[in-house]
């Protein structure tokens, strides 16, 4: 028998336990059954058997989970439990470790609730980035609830007490029963159509899960999600979370709580306002004080106390500058004068009087030589004239006539040089040395 392989009970049990634990179907599941052998241990844990007609399974619900149970489990009660299956090693039992338990019926609702919640969550309807901010100082607060329930009374009372300047618009809505969900959806839509609401409270007073059920409907969840007006949900009491609560922009545990979240407290606001006014006045006073002090400081300053000091130095500077100006000017004038003298001397050397004198001298010389020349020319001309005159006298016709020659003129006083100029009978004048002869032609004889 030595070569037969065996395992210990512990190892086997651990192996079996691991088989349970790796099976995803056994990790989180809902089981329907009837409670029997219910034991509420003094340490707070619950032990019982779940059974139906054909089978049974051991169950344990630890105190950490059962403390939230809304009902007291009893033998014979039909329930839905949620939990995981595992093995209790000491006794080799497999059993269900229960995390949630609901009476059947309500339990079914819970199943539906859980499924819808999971689906909408995955779709992103609950995600924080879709949450709209709630305005701080709403003027119009819409309320989607029943006109007759405690909820509207609580909301109105709270708003009247805290912030009476906000207007409350009630959108009468069925919040219970089969027509509740469509009614809530319609009211949310109407509230959006109004267009001027700053915030919307959607809710009702507490009740059983069946009474609150409309707020777990998908249509309501989607209407809340689609609303442009920020929505504060106010369903039931502290511990009840509805789907509407998850989708809403803000969740209030009760209608009163919703009203408190929707509006600020007027008294607090007035106090804040008064504080700001006080701060405003204080800041202004401080500003004036500060500026006055600055003014005083400036007035006390050296310059203001000894204003002479401000210009004494300037005076001195001015004097020095004046002195420099004078000195420089004088120097400049001196320079100019020296240069002028140089030029003047130069100029004197080239004075025109000298030139004039020389020119006059030259003119006298020239005049004299001109006179002299004139005299010479005149004498020469006179001599020439005399000689010419004597030559002329030699050539004068009178001289020739002295020798017996005469001149004949016709009646027109024209000198007659040919016999052809005259005919017989013409009157002629004959010029002799000492006078004229009036004659008449008798005959013509050519030679």
């Amino acid at each position, binding site marked *: 028998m030595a070569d037969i392989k065996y395992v210990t009970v512990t190892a086997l049990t651990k192996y079996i336990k691991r088989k349970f634990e790796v099976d995803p179907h056994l990790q989180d599941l809902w089981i329907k059954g009837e409670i029997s052998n219910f034991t509420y241990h003094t340490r707070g844990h619950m032990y019982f058997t779940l059974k139906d007609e054909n089978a049974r399974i051991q169950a344990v619900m630890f105190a950490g989970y059962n403390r939230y149970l809304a009902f007291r489990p009893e033998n014979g009660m039909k329930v839905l439990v949620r939990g995981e299956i595992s093995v209790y090693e000491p006794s080799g039992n497999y059993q269900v470790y229960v995390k949630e338990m609901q009476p059947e019926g309500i339990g079914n609702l819970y199943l539906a609730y859980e499924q819808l919640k999971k689906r909408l969550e995955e779709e992103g309807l609950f995600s924080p980035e879709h949450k709209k901010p709630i305005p701080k100082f709403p003027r119009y607060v819409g309320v989607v609830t029943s006109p007759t329930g405690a909820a509207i009374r609580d909301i109105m009372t709270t708003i009247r007490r805290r912030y009476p300047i906000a207007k409350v618009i009630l959108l009468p809505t069925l919040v219970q029963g089969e027509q509740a969900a469509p009614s809530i959806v319609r009211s949310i839509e109407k509230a959006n159509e109004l267009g001027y609401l700053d915030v919307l409270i959607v809710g009702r007073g507490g009740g059983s899960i069946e009474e609150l059920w409309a707020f777990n409907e998908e249509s309501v969840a989607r209407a809340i999600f689609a609303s442009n007006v920020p929505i504060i949900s106010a369903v039931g009491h502290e511990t009840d979370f509805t789907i509407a609560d998850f989708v809403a922009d803000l969740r209030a545990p009760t209608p009163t709580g919703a009203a408190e979240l929707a509006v600020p407290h007027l008294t607090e606001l007035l106090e804040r306002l008064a504080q*700001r006014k006080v701060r*405003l006045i204080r800041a202004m006073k401080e500003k004036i004080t500060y500026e006055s002090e600055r003014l005083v400081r400036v007035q006390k300053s050296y310059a203001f106390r000894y204003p002479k000091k401000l210009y004494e130095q300037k005076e001195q500077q001015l004097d020095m500058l004046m002195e420099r100006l004078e000195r420089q000017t004088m120097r400049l004038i001196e320079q100019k004068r020296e240069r002028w003298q140089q030029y003047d001397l130069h100029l004197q050397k080239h004075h025109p009087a000298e030139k004039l004198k020389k020119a006059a001298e030259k003119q006298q010389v020239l005049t004299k030589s001109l006179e002299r020349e004139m005299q010479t020319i005149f004498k020469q001309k006179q001599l020439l004239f005399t000689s010419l005159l004597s030559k002329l006298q030699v050539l004068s016709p009178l001289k020739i006539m002295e020798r017996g020659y005469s001149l004949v003129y016709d009646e027109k006083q024209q000198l007659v040089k040919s016999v052809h100029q005259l005919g017989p009978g013409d009157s002629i004048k004959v010029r002799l040395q000492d006078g004229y002869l009036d004659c008449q032609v008798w005959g013509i004889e050519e030679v």
Partner: protein
Amino acid sequence: MSEEKELTFEEAMAQLEEIVEKLEEGDVPLEKAISFFQEGMRLSKLCHDKLQHVEKQMEYILREDGELEPFAFQEE
């Protein structure tokens, strides 16, 4: 002033806060500080008036026909 009417309480409060902070910072020229102060006092009064101004009827119910009707809660 039509501009004035558009100023909501929220905006007026925000402006008032801004002015108070600017003044408290202190490095505002005096003339500017005075106009800030006057504006601040005006805003303060505006906010106060808005807060004190309560209409008698503040609660309405939306009728089926879409009209608003004064609403008073009936104590049971």
